[in-house]
C-alpha cells in the first residue's frame, strides 16, 4: 500500500513532469527534424553529428558574445549547412542515404571536436556560459520551469502539422516523399523540394543540439549528445511520421527516462545503475518492434530519384 502511495506521489509530483518536458525537448526538436527529411523521402542519419555541431556552434556563438537567440540561430545555420551537404550527396548525386548520413555524422562530430580543441587548446574544465532562464513569468505550472526553447519546440508541433497538411508547400513535400514521379509530372521540383526539406529538418536538429548547451547545461562536453540523435530516428517511426504523435512519443519516452532516473535513486544499489541507463535504448528498439507491422513508411523513403528515370 505504501509503495502504491509513493508511486502516486511520484507520478503527481511537478518535479517529475518538469524533468519529463526537459528531457523531451531535444528529442522533440530532433524528431521533428527527422520527420521533415523523411516525409520528403530522405533518411538523415546525419542527425547525431548535426546535434553535436548544433550544441557546439550554439554554445561557441554565445561564448563569443552573441545573445542566446543568436546562438540558437547559429546552431540552426550549422545544421542547415550540414543538411545542404547531405542533400547534395543524397538528392543531387543520389548516393546511399545510409552511408552519406553516417559520413555527415562522423564529419560533423569530428569537426566540432577539432574546432573545440583548436579554440580551447589548454582548458581542462569546459568554459561555461549563462544559459536560458526558466520562463517564471508564465502562469502555467510545469511549463514555467522550462526555458523558451521548450516552448518553441511545443509550438512547432501544430505549426509543422499545419504546414505539412494544409499548405501547398507541405503537399509538395509529402508528394516528393510518396511518389516523386507524380510530383514531377505535377510540376513540383523534386530536387529543390527535397533539398529544402532536408535543410529545414537539419536546422531543427541543430537547434535540438543547441538546447543541450544553451538550456539543459551551460557548457559543451564531448559525448553530450550520446545517442539522442539515433533515438529520434527511432521515435519518428514510432510517431508514424506525424508531428502530433512525435510530441506524444517524445513525452512518453522522456517520461520513462525521468522515471528511470528516480527509480535508480530509490533503488539504492539493488540493480546495477547501467540497467537503468540502458532503458532508453531498449525502449527505442521496443517501440520500433511494436509499430513495425503497421508502420506506414513514406513510399519513396530511401529511394534515390534521378530526373527522367522511371
Amino acid at each position, binding site marked *: 500500500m505504501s509503495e502504491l502511495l509513493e508511486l502516486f506521489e511520484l507520478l503527481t509530483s511537478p518535479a517529475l513532469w518538469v524533468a519529463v518536458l526537459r528531457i523531451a525537448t531535444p528529442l522533440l526538436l530532433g524528431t521533428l527534424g527527422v520527420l521533415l527529411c523523411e516525409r520528403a523521402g530522405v533518411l538523415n542519419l546525419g542527425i547525431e553529428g548535426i546535434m553535436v555541431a548544433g550544441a557546439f556552434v550554439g554554445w561557441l556563438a554565445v561564448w563569443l558574445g552573441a545573445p542566446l537567440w543568436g546562438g540558437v540561430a547559429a546552431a540552426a545555420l550549422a545544421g542547415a549547412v550540414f543538411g545542404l551537404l547531405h542533400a547534395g550527396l543524397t538528392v543531387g548525386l543520389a548516393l546511399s542515404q*545510409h552511408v552519406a548520413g*553516417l*559520413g555527415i555524422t*562522423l564529419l560533423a562530430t569530428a*569537426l566540432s571536436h577539432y574546432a573545440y580543441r583548436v579554440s580551447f587548446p589548454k582548458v581542462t574544465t569546459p568554459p561555461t556560459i549563462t544559459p536560458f532562464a526558466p520562463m517564471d513569468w508564465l502562469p502555467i505550472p510545469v511549463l514555467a520551469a522550462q526555458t523558451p526553447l521548450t516552448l518553441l519546440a511545443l509550438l512547432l508541433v501544430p505549426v509543422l502539422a499545419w504546414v505539412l497538411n494544409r499548405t501547398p508547400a507541405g503537399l509538395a513535400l509529402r508528394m516528393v516523399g510518396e511518389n516523386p514521379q507524380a510530383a514531377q509530372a505535377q510540376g513540383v521540383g523534386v530536387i529543390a523540394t527535397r533539398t529544402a526539406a532536408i535543410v529545414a529538418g537539419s536546422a531543427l536538429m541543430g537547434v535540438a543540439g543547441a538546447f543541450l548547451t544553451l538550456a539543459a547545461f551551460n557548457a559543451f562536453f564531448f559525448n553530450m549528445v550520446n545517442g539522442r540523435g539515433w533515438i529520434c530516428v527511432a521515435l519518428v517511426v514510432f510517431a508514424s511520421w506525424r508531428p502530433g504523435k512525435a510530441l506524444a512519443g517524445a513525452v512518453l519516452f522522456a517520461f520513462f527516462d525521468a522515471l528511470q532516473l528516480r527509480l535508480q535513486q530509490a533503488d539504492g544499489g539493488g540493480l546495477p545503475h547501467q540497467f537503468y541507463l540502458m532503458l532508453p535504448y*531498449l525502449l527505442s528498439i521496443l517501440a*520500433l518492434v511494436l509499430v513495425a507491422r503497421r508502420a506506414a513508411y513514406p513510399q519513396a523513403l530511401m529511394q534515390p530519384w534521378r530526373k527522367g528515370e522511371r
Partner: protein
Amino acid sequence: MRLERRDETSRLALALAPLLAVAFTLGVASLLVRWAGAPVGRTWSLMFAGAFGSVFALAETLTRATPLMLTGLAAAVAFRARLYNIGAEGQLYAGAIAAVMVGGLHGGASLTVPTALLFAATMAAAALAGALLLLGPALLKSRLGVDEVVTTLLANFIVLLAVSALLDGPMKDPLAMGWPQSVALDPELELGRLIERTRLHTGLLAAIAAAVLLWALLRFTVWGFDIRATGANSRAAAFAGVPVGWTVVRVAALSGGLAGLAGAIEVAGRTGYVTLDMSPGYGYGGIVVAMLAGLHPLGVIAASVFVAGVLVGADSMSRAIGVPTYLADVMVAVALIAVLVAGLFARWRLRWR
C-alpha cells in the same frame, strides 16, 4: 544539369577514384591545419613519420590496423548483401567480453583443458557473441521490416552499458584497485609478437587470412554468389532462386562474427583484458575502411592500414606540434564522403543541359 551513366566504366577511373578522394582529403585537412596555426608541410611530414617512418611506427600502425581490418571486413560483407550493420562497435565489445568469459574465467569452471582447445573455444565464443548480437537486428529486418541501421546503432549503447555493468560486477578484476577493467585473459592464450619490443602481434596475420578467405568466399563459392546477388537486387535474386532470407541470416552471422573476433584478438594480442576504452571507435572506423575499399575484402587490407596510419600519425604529430588529434577523425570522415563521390563520378558523368 543531370547525371548520366557512363557507357563504359574504365578500370583506370575506378582505381584512381580512391586516390583522388585521398588527395581531396589532404587538401581539406591542410586548410584545417593552417587554421590551427601550424606549418602544413611539417604537420604532414610528422604525421607520415609517425605512421610509417620507423619500424616501431609501422608496427604501431599495423597493430591498429588489425582490428580495423576485421571490422572493415565485417562491414564489407554485410554491406555487400545490403545489410547495414553499424553495430560492429558493440559486436567487438561483446566478442571481447565473451573471450574473457571463456579464456579468463573458463566459463566459471575450474577445469584444466589443453591450451589449444581453450584458445579455439575462446575465439569461437567471441565470434558467436558478435554473431548473435547481429542476428537479432537481422531477423527484425527480414521478419518485421525494422530498419537494421537504427537497431544496430542503439545496440552499441546497450552493449557498452552491459559491459560496464559486468566490469563493475562479476567480471571485475579484484586487483585493479577500482579501475574498471575485467579479469585478465589466461596468459597462455596471448598471441605471440611479430616484431620484438613492439606491440605488433600475430593477430595481423589472422586478419589478413580472414580477408583472403572472405575474398575467395565471395568470388568462388555459391554462397558468395548468393550474397552478391542479394545485395545487387534482392527481388531478382529471390526470383532466380537465391534463398534471400537465409543468405541475410548467414551474412549477419559472418559479419557479427568477424567483429566479435576483432574484440577477442584485441584482448589476446594487445590489452590482455577488457576496458571500456579499448576501442577508439574501431566499429565505426570499419565502415569507413569498407567504403574506402569499395567493399572489396582485399581492398580492406590496404584501407585499414591507411586509416590506422592516419590515426597513429595524428597522435604522434599532435604530441610534437599540438594540432588536435581530432584532425584524424575529420580526415577519416572527409575521406569517406570523398570516396563515395569519386566512386560515383567514375560510373556516372554530369551532363550540362
